[in-house]
């Protein structure tokens, strides 16, 4: 059932030009960053040779591209997540799903995995761009893998948050604005936090993604992402169930 709903989400998503436009725009922005970093690397190369343990192309080119990809996907998420529940309500199609013999958890998870499939496609595009560097040199696959894993986890957080906020309203625009506000807030949380070990820092999405971006697998980051995703999915299910009782 979850698969059926995920499939339907993807079908309606790719039936509209929105998904294609977003993928194209994302690719354009990232290619620009990618080429910029490649250019910088070429200029730096003579100096890099003189250093004992120089950073490789993965560190100089791939990592910043993934860092940017996370920011771009953060901006893209509200546009996609607002469709999930809020738009179904507005188009009166939510009844179709609720009347079917499936549970709220099926609906929420199906929608979550549908959106995640889109993010996987986006991540694959970024990885493919990085792999094109193999034409001129060797890649650090460990770092690439940790970046890809980090990107998928952080987008899963975006998706679960966007999905929950989409459950709160019947207006897609409000769902989008809410998700953007919440995600941006969590993203920049560590700018305001003063000391390096301040507690607020632990709540910032950016800080946890940074470790993956540097090639660091930390169980604390994994736990944070897992907790984040599960909490918001549970909240979304509870919210939809509660609506049947009170709405």
């Amino acid at each position, binding site marked *: 059932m979850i698969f059926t709903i995920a499939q339907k989400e993807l079908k309606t998503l790719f039936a509209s030009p929105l998904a294609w436009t977003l993928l194209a725009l994302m690719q354009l922005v990232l290619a620009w960053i990618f080429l910029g970093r490649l250019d910088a690397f070429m200029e730096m190369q003579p100096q890099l040779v003189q250093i004992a343990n120089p950073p490789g192309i993965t560190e100089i080119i791939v990592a910043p591209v993934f860092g940017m990809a996370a920011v771009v996907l953060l901006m893209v998420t509200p546009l996609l997540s607002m469709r999930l529940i809020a738009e179904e309500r507005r188009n009166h199609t939510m009844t*179709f799903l609720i009347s079917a013999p499936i549970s709220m958890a099926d609906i929420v998870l199906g929608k979550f995995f549908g959106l995640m499939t889109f993010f996987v496609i986006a991540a694959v595009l970024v990885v493919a761009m990085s792999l094109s560097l193999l034409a001129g040199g060797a890649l650090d696959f460990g770092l690439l893998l940790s970046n890809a894993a980090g990107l998928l986890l952080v987008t899963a957080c975006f998706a679960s948050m966007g999905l929950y906020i989409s459950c709160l309203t019947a207006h897609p625009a409000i769902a989008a604005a809410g998700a953007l506000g919440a995600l941006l807030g969590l993203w920049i949380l560590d700018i305001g936090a003063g000391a390096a070990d301040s507690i607020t820092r632990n709540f910032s999405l950016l800080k946890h993604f940074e470790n993956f971006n540097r090639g660091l697998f930390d169980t604390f980051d994994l736990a944070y992402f897992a907790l984040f995703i599960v909490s918001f999915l549970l909240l979304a299910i509870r919210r939809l169930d509660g609506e049947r009782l009170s709405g």
Partner: protein
Amino acid sequence: MIEQISPITISARGLCRNFGAHAAVREINLELKRGEVLGFLGPNGAGKTTTMRMLTGNLAPNAGSIEICGIDLLDQPRDAKAHIGYLPETPPLYRELTVDEYLRLAARLHRIANASIRSALDETKQRCGLNDTGKRLIGSLSKGYQQRVGIAQAIIHNPDVVILDEPTVGLDPNQMREIRALIRELGAERSVILSTHILPEVESVCDRVQIMHRGRMVFNDTIAGLKQNTASLEQVFTQLTQDEQQTEKS
């Protein structure tokens, strides 16, 4: 003629639903046998749609119980919902899908085995007169065809209970006649609850009538019984739903 024992397909007892301080539905009882078409009448705001949403599991009642084919809707919603087909007031259509894609989705969500989806799809399209529209986008169909797709989505999984909320609104007279014929046909082998404002429609299609007013059931009789009493449905309807208002005002 052999009198067949008709099993009860839907039974609701003491349904209540409040929205805040406002009681939308109070103590509604409803029972329907297989092969029966129930006309569900009432002025706007009487609580018809709320009742239907409760019967289809879209809204939880504050009190009361609902059984669909002997399965409690509140305890085992998944099993019970499999026996219901529901067309809400606004047909729940995805405009960006084609008719075939949409009906296939409805079939999958109702757990029809993959092998029999094709035959279910063909049969349903045949019944609803959608044979030539399978490849068209739902958004590009006329209102009448969209309504048919809405009905098709409600009956594709062969439910025992079909609940239709104002299915003939906005249709031209020919389409209305077709939809009514379809409802009659559906009513022959399952139970149908039909909400409408068109009284002649009820007289021509339904076996039984229930009238709601201000959240209460104020009338419940068979069409045959009504005819015996030589009362027209319209008289009964105006009497029951208007008199009260006037007496309350005075």
